[in-house]
């Protein structure tokens, strides 16, 4: 039972990382109608710059901020130089151009940092454990990640749904010309928005860095998972992103732990471990297929 709770929290933590990625991606897609494969590269930039700053003794918070800032700046430059030429193109063009960006960023990172993965330690003051439930100590850093993710998503929801800027953003999504005619500098708004989505990816990158090797190509795995999240949740829906991220985070984490055990019930251990691991890594894609077979536009479809 304690193990189960621990895995539940691990799943939640993974889900929250996915949520940060998904909310940035869905913001950009939902509003600008732009499909950005290079969102994973922004995650990678955040992780690399954050980890490097911390390794050079910047301290955790400064490192975190540096990582976020690096991702945000990279994102805004990306928008200014390339993305704004693609808003009115079909998705195919967007996919290809951002695929080119991925090649560029992956290689750039291995030029600057080398091919070997780099590691990032958890910050000292969060390296302890917290006893949430008596008898089950849980790493403080993971809890901090969960809390940050929930907080940031809440903030985002508030920003988009309740503030004037959010109103512009939503208005711009449905009618670009009209909001421009009302005197809002829509192209600046888009650049800032893109930077904001990039900052969320950067934040996710720094927070995920201690759990995974920081290496070239690290952004793609999470990018594809984020796509699964968005597709399951329903494109453009923040509620969908939340539901999808938690569902995928929990399914993936719990699946990896429990499916091999479950299969041992009726298969010999050696077979069960192999088949179980294989099933576990395919589980979320199977889940996606099942969801889409019943709801082709995701759990929280927004339009059409």
């Amino acid at each position: 039972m304690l193990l189960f709770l621990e895995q539940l929290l691990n799943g939640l933590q993974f889900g929250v990382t996915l949520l940060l990625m998904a909310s940035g991606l869905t913001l950009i897609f939902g509003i600008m109608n732009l499909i950005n494969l290079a969102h994973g590269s922004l995650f990678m930039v955040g992780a690399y710059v954050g980890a490097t700053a911390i390794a050079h003794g910047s301290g955790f918070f400064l490192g975190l901020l540096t990582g976020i800032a690096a991702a945000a700046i990279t994102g805004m430059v990306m928008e200014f130089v390339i993305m704004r030429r693609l808003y009115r193109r079909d998705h195919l063009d967007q996919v290809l151009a951002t695929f080119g960006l991925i090649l560029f960023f992956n290689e750039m990172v291995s030029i600057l940092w080398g091919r070997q993965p780099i590691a990032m330690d958890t910050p000292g003051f969060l390296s302890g454990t917290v006893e949430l439930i008596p008898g089950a100590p849980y790493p403080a850093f993971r809890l901090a990640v969960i809390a940050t993710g929930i907080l940031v998503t809440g903030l985002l929801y508030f920003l988009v749904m309740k503030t004037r800027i959010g109103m512009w953003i939503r208005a711009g999504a449905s009618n670009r010309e009209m909001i421009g005619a009302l005197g809002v500098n829509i192209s600046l708004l888009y650049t800032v928005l893109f930077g904001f989505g990039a900052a969320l990816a950067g934040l996710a990158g720094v927070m995920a860095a201690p759990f995974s090797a920081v290496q070239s190509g690290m952004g793609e795995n999470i990018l594809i998972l984020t796509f699964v999240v968005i597709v399951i949740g329903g494109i453009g829906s923040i509620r969908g992103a939340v539901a999808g991220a938690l569902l995928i985070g929990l399914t993936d984490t719990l699946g990896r732990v429990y499916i091999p055990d479950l299969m041992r019930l009726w298969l010999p251990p050696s077979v069960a471990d192999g088949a179980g691991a294989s099933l576990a890594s395919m589980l979320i894609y199977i889940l996606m297929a099942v969801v889409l077979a019943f709801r082709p536009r995701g759990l929280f479809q927004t339009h059409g």
Partner: protein
Amino acid sequence: MVKSFSRKSWATLAIFVLLALVPPIAHAFDNSFLITMFNRALIYAVAAVGLDLIIGFGGMVSFGHAAFFGIGAYTAGILGTHAFDGSEFIFGWTGSNDALVVWPLAMLVAAFFGVIIGLISLRTSGVYFIMITLAFAQLFYFFFVSLSQYGGEDGLSLWDRNAIPGLDLYDRDTFYYLCFAILLAVWFFLSRLVASRFGRVIIGCKQNERRMRALGYDPLLYKLAAFCISAAIGGLAGALIANHSEFVSPGLLHWSRSGELMVIVILGGMGTLVGPIYGALALFLMEEGLVSFTEHWQVILGPILILVVVFFRGGIVGFLSGNGRAAGKSGGDHG
């Protein structure tokens, strides 16, 4: 219109003549590596021409086509392994090394999964379709990664190339011309197909699905058939690449491979069928050129791709035939 059509025909003829001349030229320069390299491009061209059927004509942007490529390759790899060590594959069958059995089977298996993936994916469109096909390819990628019986992550060596009576597939020239003939056949078949009533319906579905339904067609059925044909061609190309490199690995199904196939289609000119052949040659030549220039060639290739997408619409064939976006003009298939 007539003029641009004839220029496009010239472009088609030129590439086929060039491809036919590769082996003699390579021998003249005493550089047989050229044949191996162009052969690889030929095989990717087969898959890409098949992909162009659904992207360029059907408006179905499949971002998971590498799955079929990989499925075809693994069909050849797995059957070859059993044929080599004589172990049972299924129902007492010990696999096969006969190209005339293995290659059609690779197409069949790919087509079978094409139907399953297509049935679920085609319920959606636009960006959903892109993402779902990508996710399905991931599913197969992880399946083969964990298939430890057949090498798992490390992949699987082909002990023997598949055999065709009377042909020596180990001979570079023979294998090259065989692949070339297959490419020609696939190109010819698809050219006939898109010009047929079936092709008109597919293009019609891309332009306006509701109208096609009103005319009494079932768009899903037609799109599924096209998807399935495209998958089968991908499977065939997979079986060929397995023979070419005598090795299969999950890397063949990696999502970046699907991206590469899409790049080939766009670079060459989508909706033209001959475009992907140009695209495959261009990509591989560019790769070879850049590799000799720097090991970090992708840092140059990436921006080139972006420039092509932003400024060079219509791809190589669009450029050669003098119109911006070649046939099968980009349609309004937004999500």
